[in-house]
């Protein structure tokens, strides 16, 4: 299942950001995911306000030395992984 560029991801019920020993983590039922650099930048924008394409745009600016298409593919892959983990809800359409 692919990620809709116009949808606005937000953390699913039971998922929230947390911190332990100065390490940001995404806390989920029964598990946790360490967030570093790009993953933290992506997850902190999953607020139900940013659309997927906005997240891609902002990270392409942030990581302007990286190849834009590669940034896009990495983000889509990461969001699909979080979707599979049931860590995200995708609100449909644009605001």
């Amino acid at each position, binding site marked *: *299942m692919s990620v809709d560029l116009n949808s606005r991801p937000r953390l699913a019920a*039971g998922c929230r950001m947390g911190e*332990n020993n100065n390490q940001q983590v995404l*806390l989920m*039922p*029964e598990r*946790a995911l360490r967030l570093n650099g790009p993953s933290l930048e992506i997850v902190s924008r999953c607020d139900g306000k940013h659309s997927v394409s906005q997240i891609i745009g902002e990270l392409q600016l942030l990581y302007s030395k990286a190849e834009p298409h590669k940034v896009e593919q990495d983000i889509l892959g990461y969001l699909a992984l979080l979707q*599979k*983990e*049931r860590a995200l809800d995708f609100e449909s359409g644009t605001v």
Partner: protein
Amino acid sequence: MASSTQNLLALVAELTHRCPLHCVYCSNPLELQSRAHELPTEVWARVFKEAAEAGALQADFTGGEPLARPDIVDLVRSARTAGLYVSLITSGLPLDEAKLEALVQAGLDHFQLSFQGAREETANDISGTRSHQHKLRVLQWLKRYRIGLTLNFVIHRRNIDELEEMLAIVEDSGAGCVEFASVQYYGWAFANREKLLPTRQQLDYCVERLKRAEEELHGKTRIFFVVPDYYAKYPKPCVGGWGRKLMLITPNGDALPCHAAPVIPGLKFENVKNRSLREIWEHSEAFQKFRGEDWMQEPCKSCDRRAQDFGGCRCQAMLLAGDATATDPVCSLAPQRPKVDAILAQINDSSSAETALVTAAAASAVKIEWLYRPNPSSF
């Protein structure tokens, strides 16, 4: 601190052994601890703080029935304040709408509701209590809140055929996660093992059906299947490896590497009333006992999989091989595997005879002599 010691990740808080249910596979020990010996609220609060300081991210409240603690709302609040992600693993039985509201307000992150079956008569028979209808009501109340929800169906020979109806309950609940957890054979389940082990045919059906369900529920509900490890080729990495991730505190404050650890003779457990959690995690003899690989025998010692499954479960090695340092006998490479095969052969032969005599429709009429889990004495 030993260089091999990793950070504690999860604290399992067995708040009480009291429970309104009497499940025939309960993982509690045969010798239950009484209410009089339960840790008071303020000691638990200190334990949560120490766990977070030692690196733990999660606190899983379990029991017995954690809701049997009158201070459950305060306990949730103090664990959350300490910085932990709080899960309540519950039968949902002593719960009303006001208590649920209070738990959510106190910061409960995740509600894990256990089910004993999809049909009322099965569920009530397995739990020895009329509990099923109330659980369905709790699911409706939970729809008002945006907290994590996991349904946990404990499955075995007597209810695995209700899988389709279980999936219907899951779909209606909107739960983010469902666990189909095959009974693991410790405690009361070990005592009732011959009545609970599924047949190979049932297991094959289950695996195939859940594979389809994963596609059907993609993006809605994550499905987690715990295999009955007697049928597995390799053992489970029990508790993520002994003393590597998890610490369990019993109702009276004993710190265990795994809930079944007391079946291993000679292990000495420290109590949180006497020592800090970090000290226990790093130095306690019970936690050190099976850390690393020094304790391993062949075939584990030279096996490529030893860093994946850590030789399997120490308690199961004790229960089935009579030696806690043996390779988990469910492993196909274990010298003691024939013992497990013999148990499975018996189940598969006798149940085919059983099903030949009893049609599926009449099966529920067959009275099974369960050994029910009682409540601890009140003293």
